[in-house]
């Protein structure tokens, strides 16, 4: 099969990154323009967040299929090395993957279990010690990263012809039987929770995703999507209640934990003061919103919320700017068109105009070349017209 046909098939099967970002995988399999050949193909077997076990489970139970998916990836991307990063608190998954990879040359590498090592950039750094440039793509450094569950669906799509219609969801927290479920896309959260024996008492929040970056849902009548890696029904026993926010004391705890080496307290000041250009100076867009800074903040400042706010404001401003630019261009084009039409009309009028006896009108308008040209064009005819009329008169 030709690579572009294969990529089309993968795209049509709806294969996307199942880590949570749901970025179309077929796009990531096209290297053209970024690098000649991939140095490292990385399979992300580190869970995004604490509490999740869906990746752990798929590696333990479907290791062979994952490796079949990796074959397809390796075929398309032709990497020098295939690395499978798995957090070291999953010994069974590591053993299963090692067994499945035997003889293939793929290397299973345990990584320390330290949030957010499941982030693509962080895992890349851990495994290859390369840092993706903060304004570029990981392929710029010859690395491409896929989730293990993505590799599994790739295998199902290419080898079995089954598009992505289900995914593994971790259902955990205050439910009777926390477990992982291979759920069809579109299944309501409520049904999954019923499958797990229903809620226990004291459920306060329902979170899609993990405790650090997830989204709090206001109802369980939500469908499972490709991005639903975890459903966390949490009581206040597990989660922190809302705490009063104190002023920032610049203690620097956030600086110590930031995986992107940012200065979160500085970003906070600028986001709060709506100094968005300064926030961008401090590399606001390198923030991966992992939530580590909010987690350690002794003043309980919802730092990530400020960064999201600042990012949204900046995007809105940029969109506004683009719209204004577009409107300006449109206006300019319209003015040009009107001017052009006016001139054309005038020229036409002059052409159609009955011959005037005095050609002196050319005098004052001599400075305008097109009009002059039109008059020049018109003149012979008018002269002939005069001649004709003269003839007629005569």
């Amino acid at each position, binding site marked *: 099969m030709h690579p572009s046909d294969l990529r089309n098939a993968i795209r049509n099967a709806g294969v996307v990154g199942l880590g949570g970002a749901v970025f179309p995988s077929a796009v990531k399999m096209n290297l053209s323009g970024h690098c000649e050949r991939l140095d490292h193909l990385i399979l992300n077997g580190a869970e995004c967040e604490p509490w999740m076990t869906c990746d752990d489970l798929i590696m333990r139970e479907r290791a062979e299929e994952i490796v079949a998916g990796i074959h397809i990836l390796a075929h398309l991307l032709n990497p020098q090395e295939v690395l499978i990063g798995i957090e070291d608190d999953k010994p069974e998954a590591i053993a299963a993957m090692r067994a499945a990879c035997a003889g293939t040359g793929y290397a299973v590498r345990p990584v320390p279990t330290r949030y957010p090592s499941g982030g693509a950039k962080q895992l890349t750094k851990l495994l290859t010690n390369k840092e993706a440039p903060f304004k570029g793509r990981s392929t710029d450094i010859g690395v491409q990263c896929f989730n293990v569950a993505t590799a599994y669906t790739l295998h199902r799509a290419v080898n079995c012809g089954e598009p992505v219609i289900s995914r593994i969801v971790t259902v955990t927290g205050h439910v009777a039987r926390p477990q992982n479920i291979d759920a069809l896309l579109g299944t309501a959260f409520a049904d999954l929770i019923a499958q797990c024996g229903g809620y226990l008492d004291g459920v306060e929040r329902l979170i899609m995703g993990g405790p650090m970056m997830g989204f709090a849902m*206001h109802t369980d009548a939500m469908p499972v999507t490709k991005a639903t890696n975890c459903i966390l029904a949490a009581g206040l026993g597990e989660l922190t209640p809302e705490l009063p926010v104190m002023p920032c004391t610049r203690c620097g705890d956030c600086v110590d934990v930031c995986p992107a080496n940012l200065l979160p307290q500085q970003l906070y000041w600028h986001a709060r003061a709506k100094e968005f250009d300064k926030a961008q100076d401090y590399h606001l867009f390198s923030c991966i919103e992992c939530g580590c800074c909010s987690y350690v903040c002794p003043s309980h400042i919802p730092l990530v919320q400020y960064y999201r706010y600042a990012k949204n404001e900046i995007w809105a401003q940029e969109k506004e700017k683009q719209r204004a630019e577009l409107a300006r261009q449109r206006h300019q084009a319209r003015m040009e068109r009107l001017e052009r039409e006016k001139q054309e009309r005038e020229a036409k009028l002059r052409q159609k105009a009955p011959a005037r006896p005095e050609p002196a009108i050319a005098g004052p308008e001599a400075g305008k070349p097109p009009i002059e040209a039109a008059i020049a064009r018109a003149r012979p005819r008018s002269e002939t017209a005069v001649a004709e009329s003269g003839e007629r008169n005569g």
Partner: protein
Amino acid sequence: MAMRFKTVTSPFVLLDTSVGLVMRRVLYAMLPGIAALAWFFGWGVLVNLVIATIMALAAEAALLAARGKPLALYLGDYSAVVTAWLLAVSLPPLAPWWLTTLGILFAIVVAKHLYGGLGYNPFNPAMVGYVVLLVSFPREMSTWLIPHGIDQAHAMTLLETLQAIFSGVLPARFAPDALTGATSLDILRTKLGLGLTVTEVRNSPVFGIVAGHGWEWAALGFLVGGLWLVYIRAAAWQIPSGMLGGLAVIATVFYLIDPQHYAPPWFHLWSGAAIYGAFFIATDPVTASATPRGRLIYGVGIGILVYIIRAFGGYPDGVAFAVLLMNIAAPTIDLYTRPRVFGERRA
């Protein structure tokens, strides 16, 4: 009907920490040093602490009420108590009550709340209070009790101490010069100014094993507490190591040039407020630099300034001035020491 849930933004789990907890840990860490001070200088140390704490809480409460802030929340952050203790420990043990009160009022009202309260003050409040007192009342601020173990006459009772602090009357059974005297740094400074050599000055009874008698034990107490603070990450390690390192290096350089006119580095490290300042004063995060490299520079700057003020300046000790001077520099240091962002090319 589908269940309804509370919606808030992530993250949903927070570390079990708070400003109040951090501040309380600072207070715990001061205890060994305070105990040593109280042992060598008597009840006055503790009385100062009590006066300062009461005054600080009263001033803080009044200002919070005036600014319309929630009292319980902000009094519970213990920042006023930390300021009070930091200042009280720096004061002479028999400082009159109005001196302590004035210093605290200046620290809390002017240096802290006029600038916006917790987190917004550019200068270390305790040190502003201390410097105001030092500049305005040089005589009261330089009369220290002679530490226990040099003169038998030191043992003032609690009642006598209270009388001295509140009415200024020293007990008649002691000769005035048997009770109070200059500190070791002060003596070193004066005697060196008179042309004596360091070795000659060191023979004075106020000197102990490495530095001032009694002082060195208080410094040891603060060192223990300070190391604990650094160990539990309540204080940034860069600041104390930078400050003590800077002080040690510059003191060593001058000591090697002329050991008879410049005191040895270990004397400087163990004297005055060097260790106390390095671990407790300079590490106040609000007024210090906030970047990892910046903190090192900030600390080294304080260490060098302390030495310059001690050796060439007009005051025997310079920790307070050095900290305030570097407070001004902290924002600029931060600006030029931004860490390399993940993925940024190494310059």
